């Protein structure tokens, strides 16, 4: 059975940022692990998440649904403006995942960074 490892870290920029480092494929079988973890963290008070996708080689539509749900839970309100989410950003997606992010149009709503420090300071 496929599994997903999620490591939770934190970093301090202008605000406190929770860094989720995900390793494994995010698909129909594993997306719930990411969704449950982020839901648990947000319930416990997390307000800003940097999602590190460096260890994800495949992300299916279930993974994108989980990311959308995360953005919603973090109180993102993209209905009023085209501005990107201030609360959820992506770090270092692999080429394969970056391609799908672009095809599905998620890059329009979520900032993507290659450098961790730059990402933390952008919040």
């Amino acid at each position, binding site marked *: 059975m496929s599994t997903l490892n999620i490591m939770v870290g934190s970093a301090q920029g202008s605000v406190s940022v929770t860094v989720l480092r995900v390793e494994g494929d995010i698909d*129909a079988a594993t997306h719930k692990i990411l969704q449950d973890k982020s839901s648990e963290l947000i319930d416990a008070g997390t307000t800003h998440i940097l999602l590190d996708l460096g260890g994800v080689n495949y992300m299916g539509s279930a993974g994108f649904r989980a990311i959308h749900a995360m953005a919603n839970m973090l109180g993102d309100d993209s209905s009023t403006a085209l501005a990107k989410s201030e609360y959820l950003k992506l770090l270092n997606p692999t080429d394969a995942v970056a391609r799908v992010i672009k095809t599905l149009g998620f890059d329009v709503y979520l900032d993507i960074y290659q450098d961790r420090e730059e990402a933390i300071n952008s919040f």
Partner: protein
Amino acid sequence: METPLTPTEYTIATLRKCVFLNGLEDSVLAVLASKIEPLLMEAGKTIVTKGETGSTMFIIIAGVAKVHDGEVTLATLKSGDVFGEIALLDSEVRSASVTTTCESLLLCIHRDVFYEALSTNPSAFKAVIRSVLQGKRGLINEIKARSLRLLSYQKEMEIGRRIQTDFLPKSVPDLEGWEIASCFEAAREVAGDFYDVFKLTSSSHLAFVIGDVCDKGVGAALFMTLFRSLIRASSLYGCIGSTLVDAGSENADDSANGVLLNSINMTNRYIATTHADSSMFASVFFGLLDTETGELSYVNAGHEAPIIFRKSGETEYLAVTGGVVGLFPAANYKVETATLNKGDLIFTYSDGVNEAKNTDGQQFGEARILKVATQQIDDVESFLCSMRDAVRSFRGEADQSDDITMLALKYLPSAGLAD
């Protein structure tokens, strides 16, 4: 005042309550009781493991245990319930695991002890056989009941499938100078893919849509009906003041752009706000084709790029012009254009085609799509049949994991001219 039971008498009473043993005479139960002792198990202890051979039956005196297959709980057992009894009669592997959910007291009867007790009275074997048969009868009744329930679910799914089929076009428009064909194969009874082809009433445009709702099964199918209906309704009708009019009729010069943007924006905004919590989305390619000139205006919302196979042998991809539909209310879509010339074919498809997997886990991929196109492109019907057959043959014994939808249009060469 009643005399309290001795431990052996208590064990006999417990054994007698057990359906599997209640046909045995007291003398046999007494022999059995004299050879077994209650065992205290801590919470979370796995007593029986699926796949292992066993030779012991267990009776719960007090406590609770769950019968499970991995993470899936199949049943909950409590005081008086029995498990593992089949192991007394044969040496097959355990069919499920059993784990205590709280501290529990159990009686364990080993196969050797059981046969030794039975051998004290020949009629005991008859009683055990009777119990086994009773158990079998119970099982048959349970299977019958479950089969009926399953049949009822299957009927419901079949009704769902039939209703969903009504959301796909029954036939494609017959247009002079054009050939249109479609192919739709659901991976399950109901599908998340859809396609649509219809003529706009306000102009000479033909609308064609292909979409893929994320996820599979019933949830995707319900959203498929919503996406398809919103796109078609908002393409056909609009309002000027309080009057319902044909979409695009107010500004004929820009009708294609207006219809495309109005339809995709409206559908996106509606689903992204009304159904925000479900995080459901669809990739959609929506084209408006002027069938008199071959001019195509389109929005590609996160969908696999349709391919134009030119008569000259060249290919052109209609890349994305915006993100998927249904997630971000303020999404911005662009309209792009392309021109189809006589002899050109446009092929739209869902990812069930290029991502079809064989038993080795390899994907059909774009290269194979192009290869089929070089072999068979004379008419759209046989082009789609060749593509479908190539995907099937590539997949081999592997399951069809996703819906397959294809829609192709060909601008026929002028009559009398060589193809």
